[in-house]
């Protein structure tokens, strides 16, 4: 707990991260999502669930739930904001760096949070495409 209370790192969050932590965007459950996936593990201390509403090839809406730190909540907000209105191909091209940059940079220690949000998004797109494939056959 104080983890090791004595080994706290010098964490410094950007204003943008604190803003999104205080007032997260797109957080909550979605009614009738096209696809919902989870990534991460509560044992490791961060987990994200993401729901997308997709029509044709376009992401109409995105929402997320978070068990994690401020960086986790902020990156969930950033990713869902960035992909709304985008096509699946465009969303898939979103990079971890773009997510981090949109937040004014993440502390090095918290880069794994951006990775988690990015992985959750990729997984949602992958599962949706699989579902479509299965429907075709």
């Amino acid at each position, binding site marked *: *707990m*104080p*983890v*090791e*209370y*004595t*080994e*706290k*790192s010098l*964490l410094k969050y950007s204003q943008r991260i*604190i803003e999104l*932590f*205080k*007032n*997260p965007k797109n*957080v*909550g459950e979605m009614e009738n999502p096209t696809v919902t996936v*989870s990534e991460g593990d*509560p*044992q*490791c*201390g*961060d*987990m*994200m*669930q993401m729901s997308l509403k997709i029509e044709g090839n376009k992401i109409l809406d995105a929402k997320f*739930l*978070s*068990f*994690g*730190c*401020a*960086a*986790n*909540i902020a990156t969930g907000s950033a990713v869902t904001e960035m992909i709304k209105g985008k096509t699946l191909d465009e969303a898939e091209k979103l990079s971890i760096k773009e997510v981090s940059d949109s937040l004014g940079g993440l502390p090095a*220690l*918290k880069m*794994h949070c951006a990775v988690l949000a990015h992985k959750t998004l990729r997984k949602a797109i992958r599962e949706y495409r699989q579902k479509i494939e299965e429907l075709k056959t």
Partner: protein
Amino acid sequence: MLEPRNMRVYLDNGTTTQVAKEVLEEMLPYFREKFGHPTFVYSLGQEAADAVERAQEIIAESINAKREEIIFTSGATEANDLAIRGMAYANKKRGNHIITTKVENPSVLRVCERLESEGFKVDYLDVDPQGFLDLNQLEDLINDKTILISIMHVNDEIGTIEPIEEVGKILQELRQRVYFHVNAAASYGRVPIDVERMNIDALSITAHKIHGPKGAGALYLRTNTPVEPVTCGYVSLFPLRPGTENVPAIVGFGKAAELAFDGFEKHVEHMKRLRDKLMNGIEEKIQHVVLHGPRGERRSPANVNYSFKYVEGESVLLHLDLNGISVATGSACSTRKLEPSHVLTAIGVKPEIAHGAIRFTLSRYNTSEEIDYVLEVLPKVIENLRRISPIKAGQF
């Protein structure tokens, strides 16, 4: 999520404390008027030496020691290093075995690991789910090579008061001489310490956890205890701790100890009342909480530590901070290593629960109104974070 309020409530007194006004006033003359080096015989030097002696006296009296048995250091970390390495080196002809616990502060654990790399053998005692060491295991581990036992008095994370007096008795009854070091950084000024009754040979304390300044600590060392210095240099007042004494901070340490022990029982009762109010309030108002450490008399009066399941500690900490409340967390996310607290792991807390651990540590200056405010804010913070958590009640 919550409207920020102006109230500031500091509940991280186990990490560090605000310097008391009286302490600062006592210190100030020693920066500009009475700035002398305590080794020198001119009056400026004597003034400084007298001030260091007065601080020694106050601190010695507070733990039932003699004045000459108090050595000043830069803090408990340095005191732990000097005590453990110093005693290990001084006794290595007799043996190379040291016993400590798995739940010590890093300032003890890292020193023990270093000694292991130098050829010493260290055993780390297990603790039970409330953090207590096992006296039988300790007795079983003592062998003819054992030279030193180092045990914390109060666990800084979960408030467990270890059975120091019982350990002291065990060591007293041994035929061989095994030295006993106690890290009392978290207990000094909160739990009574008597180095005679507890049969302690070395004890580490620090000023900044009792409303004194940062940069002053002390090692109590029983007369005739063999210790080798671990720092080399010009010897001023303390042969075991060369270098110029931090006189203003030492003066502040003395004053802080005087304030802490003047009305000690009253201060402890006050902290206990606040501790119990906070614990009862949390258990009444918030579901799915897990207490870490024991209840009642064997818990530090200043420590409250709960996990709030299904939420992550750093988020709780930051939301409390946005509302003016300072606490600490056992969450991995607040450390460099991204691993949950070694103490919570040692008492068997599952990682997913350890990540939601929040530590509240009290001081005599906290008030009942502050606890009311925390009990108003905290349930809302937890509720809001649970609302956005993908983990639902009952999942673990």
